[in-house]
């Protein structure tokens, strides 16, 4: 089971690279949806069966795999944009940076003081690498939708870390985090629409005109 979980985590890491490397927004959204579904399956592989676990799995797959991608897809269609052009940092440099960060996070995770039963998993390095990927996307992309995608990947990274604790984590915290994400995406969806209506573009660097003088 653990080897299967590790293989899935490798898949998660690959999806990180896909979203770092692609300029097509729809493709990026689908990749993140796939990542969400994988994350939904993971808890079932590493923890013994319980109804709590079933609940988590169903809600995670539902929200991350279907609801949020649907909302984002609608935002992309209504804003009529297909590609992220002119990011602040090109695709190849971000891919390279992503690779460097992934390598660093493996190195870093190896030195963390962890419980012995967690040592052999790939969870912690994968989590940190995904976090970093999220940050990279957030900082280098210009379009508001890419920013939402970055935010989602960032949250996935946090979720992977939380998997280690799934047994101990109270339902309320999980529900809170998920709700946070859902509302966050929802608000971003509205913001995206407003930005595109106001500036007839989704370029977040135009938002500088909103800052307080």
């Amino acid at each position, binding site marked *: 089971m653990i080897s299967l979980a590790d293989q899935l985590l490798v898949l998660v890491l690959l999806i990180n690279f896909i979203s770092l490397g692609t300029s097509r927004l729809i493709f990026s959204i689908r990749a993140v949806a796939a990542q969400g579904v994988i994350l939904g399956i993971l808890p079932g592989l590493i923890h013994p069966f319980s109804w709590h676990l079933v609940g988590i799995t169903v809600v995670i797959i539902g929200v991350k795999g279907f609801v949020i991608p649907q909302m984002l897809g609608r935002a992309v269609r209504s804003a009529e944009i297909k590609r992220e052009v002119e990011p602040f940092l090109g695709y190849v440099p971000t891919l390279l940076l992503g690779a460097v960060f992934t390598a660093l996070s493996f190195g*870093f995770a190896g030195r963390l003081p962890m419980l012995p039963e967690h040592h052999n998993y790939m969870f912690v390095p994968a989590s940190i690498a995904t976090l970093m990927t999220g940050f990279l996307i957030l900082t280098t992309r210009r379009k508001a939708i890419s920013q939402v995608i970055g935010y989602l990947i960032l949250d996935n990274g946090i979720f992977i870390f939380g998997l280690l604790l799934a047994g101990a984590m109270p339902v309320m915290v999980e529900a809170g985090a998920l709700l946070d994400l859902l509302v966050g995406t929802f608000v971003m969806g509205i913001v995206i629409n407003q930005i595109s209506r106001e500036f007839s573009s989704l370029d977040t660097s135009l938002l500088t005109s909103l800052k307080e003088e």
Partner: protein
Amino acid sequence: MFFALQGILDPGLMVLVAAIVVGCAGVPGLFLKKPGTGQAFAAVATILATLAGVAASMQLLFSYTTITYVLEWNLPFGPCELVIDPLSAFFMLPVFLVSAAGSLFALGYWPSAEHRTTERGLTFFYGLLASSMAILLMARNGVFFIMLWEVMALSAYFLLVTEHESNDVRRAGIVYLIATHTGTAALFVYFSLLAAQTGSFLLPAAGSLSALSPFATIIALSAFIGFGAKAGIMPLHIWLPSAHANAPSHVSALMSGVMLKMGLYGIFRTLTYFYDPPLLWGAVLTVTGITSALFGIAFAVAQRDMKRLLACSSIENIGIITTGIGVALLGVSSHNTTLVYLGMAGALLHILNHSFFKPLLFLGAGAIIHATGTREMNLMGGLGKGMPRVALLFMIGSVAICGIPPLNGFVSEFLLYLGFFKQLKADSLVYLVLLAPLLALVGGLAVIAFSKLFSSVFLGTPRSPAAAHSHEAGLTILVPMAFFALICLLIGIAPQLGLHLVSPAITSFYPKLASTELSVEYGAILGRLSLSGALLLAVAVVAMFLWRWRLGKSPVTSAPTWGCGYKRGTARMQYGASSFSELAVSVFNGIIRQRIGRPKLTGLFPGAAHCSEVPTETILERIIVPLFTIAGVSFAFLRRLQHGQMHLYMLYVFVTLFILMLWAH
């Protein structure tokens, strides 16, 4: 009635359910399409819940019981206890009564048909504010307390900015937000230190901490800042006048009548933790209290805006209550039980009284604003002819707030005076006697402020067309006012009832006072007071009938008020509100600092000219705003970090995280 309920229902549960019902009363209105239904539903639900809640809290109060519930919450802050002890039950009374009266008043004052866009939010947050305060009184877990405190503060903010199209309202809202969050920051310090002392977030039991430990002073100081900012004790009152003036009137009534008291409740609760408060604490409370009372009422005298005047008088009343608490605390430190009893009884009874006459006055102000469309007293006049019932009720409120017998304001101040004069023969703390003339000065200034308010609004001839066409308020406005006026009269005529209400709360504050000797002794004194009050009322009634009878016998001609035989007297010849208080204000000119614009008159026949006197918010405009400006200028370089580039903001987070990770390595 409520003793019959004892067998059927658990009173603690009933209070809890009532609080939740009040909180949810505005929810259906958010979804109903038809205007008015939601508002009417909210009013009915709130009144029903209040009947249950008041009955249950009275029962808890009189039976001296403490009820404990534990809320199951999966949060890592320890158990969440909900406790209703007599002190909580006592504060529960105004919460329920004022919110019920306000929600009924809203039907006439802020009808859904005219204010469709704002009414829904107003009704919802009104319930939420009342409910959060009721549950706050039960909360015994620091974290839960802070949560409710924030719900309370924020729903008050949303109520306050109901008319956010106006610049003044938005400014008042921002000042309020800054003030309340400064207070909350102090409360974070307070609860963290308490948790550090006791090892859990549960509030400490009564008398379980020593005031001599080094942390105790910081705890007391942060409680004073945090709770005092909410209560509006003098240097921390900056948000109060503009907030109360700009909120809808029933909201001002709830804020002034009840929300300020939550700050006082916090102070009370904090003081119960310590078994040996030093003299200094009592002295600080007494001095700040009497200062607030004096300056608060001095500011009130200068105001031109009716609701600002009422708000400043709230500062005064909070000051009087704080003085009472301070005196009681001095009594605790010096083991003088009489002083504790009188200070406590005066403070608690004044809390109750203020939460009746101040809402009465704010609701009256609402009725006047509803009729004339302005808050400026210089534009009113002669309203007594158009709205005699409102005028009568408003007068009862004014007399009560000035502390004139036979109304309730007198009773609580009388208890404080008794306490001060008792010190004449005492061995220590003799100088407390000096508070008596100060309190008398406050009372005198209050009479000036309220005779200015009443006379410029209701007497004389109308100073503007709107004031000339005033109309009597409807039943939904009059009934809540009449209700408060009745309670004011009842406590004034039968002060023993008030003493009965406060005794359990005093006992829970200072358990050594459980012996009934003192309450019997002062009950007897108040009994004589009650007799003379009744006599005074009877004389007043008889005099009024005699006057009516004489008036009926002789022919009556009517002429404009202050006509004084002038052929063409105009309304502008009468004393205006500002001119009435001119002399009193000039005495306090060092503190009040009016902005006066006087025209230069030249020649024998000067042309039209304009004169204005605007009272300023001394502390806000002379101290706080300049301080904020200096801070703004000196930290201007930090603004370069805020450039509006979203991805660079993300980079800040990223870099911080990275540095933290490296550091942890």
